[in-house]
């Protein structure tokens, strides 16, 4: 099933505010850098890929709204551009828009862009992701 072409350019509602905590960052560090690094973490900058936690909230909401099965999605590419590091105490929201959409060999190639902003509305990080959707039978 092809994804609706009218999605291009559409911006979705911001995600629910996400409060960054020391423990959540430590858990993320444990998962990507191991237990020693997690133990040493003293509450500073979150790892560079941490904003994906907030960006995925936006992506899951988008997939859900469009009736796209998560298991048919493979991540094609990902880019982060940072205005500043993310710190515990930040309250973040992500706003996703669909930048491009094309079909190749029965798969949808969905280009998304999310802006992650803090409680003051200042831009913290921009993420761009390409999602490959294998349509399957329905």
């Amino acid at each position, binding site marked *: 099933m092809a994804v609706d072409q009218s999605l291009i350019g559409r911006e979705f509602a911001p995600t629910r505010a996400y409060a960054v905590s020391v423990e959540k960052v430590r858990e993320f560090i444990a998962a*990507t850098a191991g237990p020693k690094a997690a133990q040493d973490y003293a509450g500073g900058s979150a790892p560079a890929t941490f904003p994906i936690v907030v960006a995925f*909230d936006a992506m899951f909401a988008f997939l859900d709204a469009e009736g796209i099965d998560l*298991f048919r999605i493979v*991540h094609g*590419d990902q880019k*982060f*551009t*940072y205005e500043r*590091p993310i710190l515990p105490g930040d309250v973040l929201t992500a706003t996703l828009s669909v930048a491009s959409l094309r079909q190749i060999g029965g798969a949808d190639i969905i280009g998304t862009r999310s802006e992650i902003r803090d409680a003051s509305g200042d831009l913290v990080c921009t993420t761009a992701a390409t999602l490959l959707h294998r349509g*399957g039978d329905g």
Partner: protein
Amino acid sequence: MTGRLQAGQSLPTQVFSVRRADLIRYAGASGDFNPIHWSDRVATSVGLPGVIAHGMFTMGLVARAVEVWTDAAEVVELGCRFTNPVPVPDDEVGVEVSVAGTVKEAAGDLITITLEVTCGAVRVLGMPKAVVRG
């Protein structure tokens, strides 16, 4: 801290061991519970060889490698393509992901690092690149 990094410099390769349990841990930490990262049944149903690592997990290892190389310099930009999957077998051994890097450019206060990320003989990321503030 990163002042000692110079253009052309090769950075010491970092090797990460990846097992199923690591993917489960990452799923919990990141909130990405896509079953292709924990269920062979679902993964093979969509044409994958079996459970594969989250692309963002592999990218997380890249971020970790960059952090170690640069003494945790501020990252300004990080990007890659996910060109080949990293299948992770359901055993105690798992797979190894190697992250190699080269300082491509050190201009002003910005340092650009290009990387090569492999699993076995397969290059799994396309054009992985990080820019940090020196």
